[in-house]
């Protein structure tokens, strides 16, 4: 029986990998060849025929060397799935949402102010911004879906802009209550409530509406158009 590892080493010479990694590849392929050979011998094939049949698994060793080198060194997807399906669409949705808010404020749109109680913080809504947010949510959902995101990831991408605010308020609320010795607790609670509604809940719903509608639209289109073979 030949020394399979030596055979693979010779035939794959020039494989440009680190020495340890190269040895791993040689060893792995050698085990495969050895098992193929042994299996053929067990089936009753003579040594020479088993050897020929085993080696016939590789028509062109130089081609295999190239293929292995590409597979082990070139990152096919520079960005992994999570980046393409969530972070990128989410950050673009965030940028668009903030851009829209900036525009709304620049063009002097007055916010709707709801007075909750005398002397306590108020709820502020920029109606044009809230009306435009479904577009941003739809963009996030579209980009995420196009990258192959699941329904959960698609919806997370569309509401991505409010997630940082949500996290901040979830931390800031309880912390504020703990450290607000000098302030009345009801003021802190009202502030927490109003900011959560104004900056998380209301925009989140607006974004979600856009994301949900986009997902619905894409699902309906894909069910009528079938699978693309790109």
């Amino acid at each position: 029986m030949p020394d399979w590892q030596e055979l693979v080493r010779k035939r794959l010479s020039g494989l440009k990998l680190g020495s340890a990694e190269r040895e791993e590849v040689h060893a792995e392929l050698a085990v495969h060849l050895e098992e193929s050979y042994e299996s053929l011998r067990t089936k009753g094939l003579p040594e020479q025929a088993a050897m020929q049949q085993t080696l016939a698994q590789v028509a062109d060793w130089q081609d295999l060397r190239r293929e292995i080198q590409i597979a082990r060194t070139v990152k096919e997807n520079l960005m992994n799935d999570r980046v393409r399906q969530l972070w990128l669409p989410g950050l673009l949705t965030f940028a668009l949402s903030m851009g829209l808010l900036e525009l709304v404020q620049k063009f002097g749109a007055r916010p709707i102010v709801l007075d909750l109680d005398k002397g306590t913080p108020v709820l502020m809504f920029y109606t044009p911004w809230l009306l435009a947010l479904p577009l941003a949510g739809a963009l996030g959902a579209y980009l995420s879906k196009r990258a192959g995101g699941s329904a959960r990831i698609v919806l997370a991408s569309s509401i991505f802009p409010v997630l940082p605010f949500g996290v901040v308020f979830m931390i800031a609320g309880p912390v504020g209550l703990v450290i607000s010795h000098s302030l009345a607790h009801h003021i802190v609670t009202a502030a927490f409530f109003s900011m959560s509604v104004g900056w998380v809940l209301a925009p989140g719903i607006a974004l979600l509406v856009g994301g949900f509608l986009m997902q619905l639209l894409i699902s309906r289109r894909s069910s009528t158009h079938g699978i693309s073979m790109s």
Partner: protein
Amino acid sequence: MIGAGVKRGTAELAILSVLEEGPLHGYEMARRIEEQTKGALRFTLAALYPMLYRMEQRGWIRGAWETSQSGRRKRCYRLTPAGKKKLSPLRKEWAELFGALKRLTKVAHA
């Protein structure tokens, strides 16, 4: 002739499906696929390993050296959570494709 994209897609599905049953090394994987598809799908060494390495780079499978009962060291592959997640939509996609082709050939013969 079947295009490279289709070939690669079916190969990926076959590998992920067979690994769903448990960790396997390359030779055993090729043998199981051939056996379970009654010889319809055959992986030569040259086709199998570049595919396995690509799938490992993508994070769908992970290989680790293990020593078998016979004392031989083999690199065993197992599905990662990302690979498990990939399997279900991939299956759905291929089922849709084969369904569509089936409908098409029925129409063509009608």
